[in-house]
């Protein structure tokens, strides 16, 4: 489908309003303490909603571009926020449609309404994200500028052997600050493997503000793999809201290797019993990138498990931040929540700030957090060199060993191999 010019969304966002001071967080906001977004966005930036419209000729160019090969199988391709059906290959069990929610007041998520559509009598509590939304108007900006986002619906006829690539492509013509929004609805008992990716087809670098909402129904099993490897030096703000129903499981794997700024907000609400969520982050940054992983896992009921494992290697003049929060509600007894963050610094000019946080109101829980920041171990290096491995190779070997933990968490072998290539170019 090619968006038509006629259907341009009506939008009354005042271009003259200063979106920088109105919508971008300052470092005084604790959630953004180590990432000054204003440094990455020029002051005179104009924002406008994407129309999704693209001329056929330009679309053809993108399809046949050498920059990025659009997968032929199991691929959902969005360009400038608009689904391109002719380029996509949507497998059995996946339904994509637009959410037309006129009642949305910009400050809430779409998931609240969508969830109630599917199960009318459900007492849902998708509101657990409200404190984050209040402090992060950048989500509101996304809602304002993407008036009718897509819902990607997975049902039980979906074959879990397929992993689906979701491409958020942009040509950067609509402006310098790009938005995209979608909602994943994973039906009960459904097992899915999703690989979202942001691709810049434009000529200049850009900032991409991508918001994904996820609803995992009972016994759903969601696996999401996000590779962040933008060679055009663009910035990405990637926000995920995941709400989980009884017996559901979610696994998020984030791989960051390239990009001017990478900010990942991953917020998970474990809303019903026996939910499990794991969030793994692996990064190897060697130039001037800035990476900020911001994680909040909320245990709202008893008997849920969560696990965070973030392994980062910082080289060159890179900077990083990790903030991982585990929140355990008063009645969420028997919670098991683990968190680990290890940082390996391979350059004297690199730096990282780590902020593990536990907020526990229940008294019968197992929670842990651990954080390390260190350099390459001299003893290990000498050990490898004494066996004939040259220093440069030995450092590479130690880095790959360091990152193995989190990469080995990828269940499907085909994706694991893909990721290993991304990191080690083997």
């Amino acid at each position, binding site marked *: 489908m090619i968006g038509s010019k006629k259907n341009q969304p009506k939008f009354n966002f005042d271009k003259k309003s200063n979106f920088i001071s109105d919508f971008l967080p300052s470092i005084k906001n604790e959630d953004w303490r180590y990432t000054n977004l204003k440094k990455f966005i020029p002051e005179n930036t104009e924002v406008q909603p994407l129309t999704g419209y693209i001329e056929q000729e330009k679309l053809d160019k993108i399809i046949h571009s050498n920059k990025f090969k659009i997968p032929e199988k199991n691929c959902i391709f969005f360009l400038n926020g608009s689904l391109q059906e002719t380029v996509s290959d949507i497998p059995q069990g996946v339904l994509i449609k637009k959410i037309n929610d006129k009642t949305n007041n910009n400050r809430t998520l779409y998931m609240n309404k969508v969830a109630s559509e599917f199960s009318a009598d459900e007492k849902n509590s998708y509101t657990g994200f409200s404190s984050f939304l209040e402090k992060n108007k950048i989500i509101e900006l996304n809602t304002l500028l993407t008036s009718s986002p897509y819902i990607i619906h997975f049902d039980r006829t979906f074959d879990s052997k397929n992993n689906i690539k979701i491409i958020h492509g942009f040509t950067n013509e609509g402006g310098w600050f790009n938005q995209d929004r979608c909602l994943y609805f994973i039906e009960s008992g459904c097992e899915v493997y999703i690989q979202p990716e942001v691709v810049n087809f434009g000529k200049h670098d850009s900032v991409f503000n991508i918001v994904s909402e996820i609803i995992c129904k009972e016994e759903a099993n969601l696996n999401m793999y996000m590779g962040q490897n933008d060679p055009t030096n663009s910035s990405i703000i990637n926000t995920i809201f995941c709400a989980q129903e009884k017996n559901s499981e979610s696994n998020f794997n984030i791989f960051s290797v390239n990009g001017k700024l990478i900010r990942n907000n991953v917020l998970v609400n474990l809303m019903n019993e026996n939910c499990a969520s794991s969030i793994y982050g692996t990064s190897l940054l060697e130039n001037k990138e800035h990476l900020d992983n911001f994680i909040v896992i909320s245990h709202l009921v008893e008997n849920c498990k969560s696990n965070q494992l973030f392994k980062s290697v910082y080289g060159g003049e890179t900077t990083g931040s990790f903030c991982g929060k585990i929140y355990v509600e008063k009645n969420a007894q028997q919670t098991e929540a683990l968190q680990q963050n290890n940082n390996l610094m391979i350059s004297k000019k690199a730096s990282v700030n780590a902020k593990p946080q536990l907020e526990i109101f229940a008294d019968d829980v197992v929670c842990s957090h651990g954080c390390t920041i260190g350099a390459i171990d001299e003893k290990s290096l000498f*050990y490898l*060199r*004494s066996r*004939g*491995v040259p220093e440069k*190779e030995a450092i590479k*070997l*130690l880095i790959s*060993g360091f990152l193995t933990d989190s990469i080995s968490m990828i269940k499907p072998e085909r994706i694991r191999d893909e990721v290993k290539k991304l990191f080690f170019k083997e």
Partner: protein
Amino acid sequence: MLKIKNLKVNTETEISILKGLNLDVNEGEVHAIMGPNGSGKSTLASVISGDPKYVIKEGVLEFLGEDVSEMDPEERAAIGLFLSFQYPVEIPGISLNNFIKTALNQKQKSLGLEPFSAKEILARIKENANALKINLDFIKRSVNVGFSGGEKKRAEIFQMLMLNPKLSILDETDSGLDIDALKIVASGVNKLRSENNSFIIITHYQRLLDYIKPDFVHVLSDGKIIKSGGPEIAKMLEEKGYDWI
């Protein structure tokens, strides 16, 4: 093969450890070095292998007629030096299998030789693992991570056999081993022992020397070799202690 003359070595913090040490090791010889704790045995082993923690202040360190004192550890390994560590380092995330393959082929590369084929390497792995009674599953584990003391030492000897060095230095490889493990380690050394391969064996106990018969025994004390002789020295030390010298 190895020629050390008046070697004086300090730590990075300028503490003097080796204070004028002399040692000559020829092809096919096995030298045992004994001595009290803190006398400089491990430092000697590290310095020969090129540990950057130590600074050579004075003296000669030659291997195969070449001055190696300023060579990188990997260069020394390439021309045939091997150190079995007293405390083998744990390397998470890298399997012993992968590591030994990398080490072998890096060595080939620096010698300007073709890399071994996967088949050749596998055959060598199997042969050497068999000789040391090592299970092939063991080789898939991360280097030294979660290994018992005995397993660590066995893994060191396994790597030694794989790399086939000209001079192997065994730094207290026997410490903490039970009799069976000791025999296996000794059999590994004896497997490699030939008229071309030499060994320096650092030990506290005469027991190991029952299984690996040394040609020479040296006593190192306060950074110098103070006594050299045949295997009888080790026996005397076992009976009478270091005060005897």
